[in-house]
């Protein structure tokens, strides 16, 4: 018996049975029994001189909300942040590792690590342990080489630089919305508004996303955290 025995039983139903949706998203389907999932909406948009990252705050076990005010934005270094989705345990462990490696690297090189390096470290961990991890993360931040940049690392451990990134179960509901709202060269203000609006709409349609919106604006001058309470979301036209 391997560790996935739980869903193996589910999926080994007799063949002639017609397709039935298991009610789970790609991010949550392979969770171990009882594992916490950040069934999530996360997002990042770079702008001239920085990047905005945002996330909802719901953490669930099945349909029970284990934490309604969680923080899915993790700081990896001074100007590098990470949005987490998938297994809470896995993504916490991953960000801890990357944070550790980056702090070591910063000491050795005597300069701030780049977002690309952070993404590369995360991608290595995700790729080399892909069979045992449930993690889809977005890495964003500011560095002197690329300025504001965003990298996406989905389930298999692919690493792709993106003009903007959305992720988590809630993101599927807002692809159209974000495609229509996003344009190249957005200002900080526009990007920030876009992130909050998009996440609001995802939270409204995704049962696994909800609570409050947490954002961070990363710039050379520093990081500014913001919080939008669940009863004051910028939802609607």
């Amino acid at each position: 018996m391997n560790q996935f025995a739980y869903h193996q039983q589910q999926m080994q139903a007799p063949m002639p049975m017609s397709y039935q949706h298991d009610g789970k998203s790609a991010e949550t389907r392979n969770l171990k029994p009882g594992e916490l999932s950040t069934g999530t909406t996360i997002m990042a948009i770079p702008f001239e001189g920085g990047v905005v990252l945002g996330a909802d705050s719901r953490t669930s076990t099945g349909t029970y909300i284990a934490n309604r005010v969680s923080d899915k934005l993790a700081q990896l270094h001074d100007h590098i942040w990470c949005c987490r989705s998938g297994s809470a345990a896995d993504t916490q462990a991953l960000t801890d590792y990357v944070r550790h490696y980056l702090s070591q690297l910063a000491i050795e090189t005597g300069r701030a690590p780049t977002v690309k390096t952070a993404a590369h470290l995360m991608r290595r961990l995700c790729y080399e342990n892909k069979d045992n991890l449930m993690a889809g993360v977005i890495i964003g931040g500011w560095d002197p080489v690329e300025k504001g940049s965003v990298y996406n690392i989905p389930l298999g451990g692919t690493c792709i630089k993106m003009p903007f990134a959305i992720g988590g179960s809630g993101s599927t509901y807002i692809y159209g919305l974000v495609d229509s709202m996003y344009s190249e060269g957005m200002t900080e203000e526009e990007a920030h508004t876009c992130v909050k609006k998009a996440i609001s709409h995802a939270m409204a349609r995704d049962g696994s996303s909800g609570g409050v919106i947490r954002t961070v604006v990363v710039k050379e001058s520093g990081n500014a955290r913001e919080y939008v309470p669940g009863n004051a979301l910028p939802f609607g036209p």
Partner: protein
Amino acid sequence: MASSGSGYDLSSSTFSPDGRIFQVEYASKAVENAGTALGLKCSNGVVLCVEKPLLNKMLLPSSSRRIHTIDSHSGVAITGFVSDGRQMVNRAREECSNYEETYGTKIPSKVLGERLASYVHYFTLHGSLRPFGTSALVASYDPETKQHSLQMVEPSGVAYTYYGCAAGKGRQPARTELEKLDVHKPETSIDVREGVKQLARIIHLLHEEGKDKPFELEMSWVCEESNWEHKGVPRDYIKEAVEWAKKDIEEEEEFESDEDEEMED
């Protein structure tokens, strides 16, 4: 302390009473007898140059290289025990490859120098190991900061960053000549093409025809012209530089002998 060496020079794990490690100093001596190696940081790149003595008439000129590429943007020139140097080169390549595999970016010049120095230093710590009889000049470029740099790793395990450096037999007069170039001041810095000529001149200046063994000039650069990759200086240009160098030295000598005559008057 005339006899301070006695008994204290058998192992690099033992200090002498006046605080020296003789094995490390002897290793440096091994470098001091080898062909001269020069490095020069110019305004738009770094040039490496090694005088490779042709020990035997039957030797194939291109064999036993002294300058090695260790990563797309960096090269190492070695002098001293070439076989020791080869170990350093291999280690340097590993460091570059491992760094890029882990962090997804090229290794910063300073980190490369420090890691290579740590490797060399390790061999000065144990009684069961022999220090490296090699100095390595590292020319490298960092695509992130767009800075180029020149470092020298010595048998003691130190690495310093230089504008111009020299190792091997002719290092003392070479350093004097390098200082005269004033490349450390931005207003008098020279470009790599001029740098190649100057290094060729210094090597030929120090070389005494007839007394010293014939030699081959190996030259490489990491510069704008090579797209910041480590490449051999074009053979034609080395030839041109050497011709210029010989002529320049001749003229200088004529000028000096003229001056001598004038003084006699």
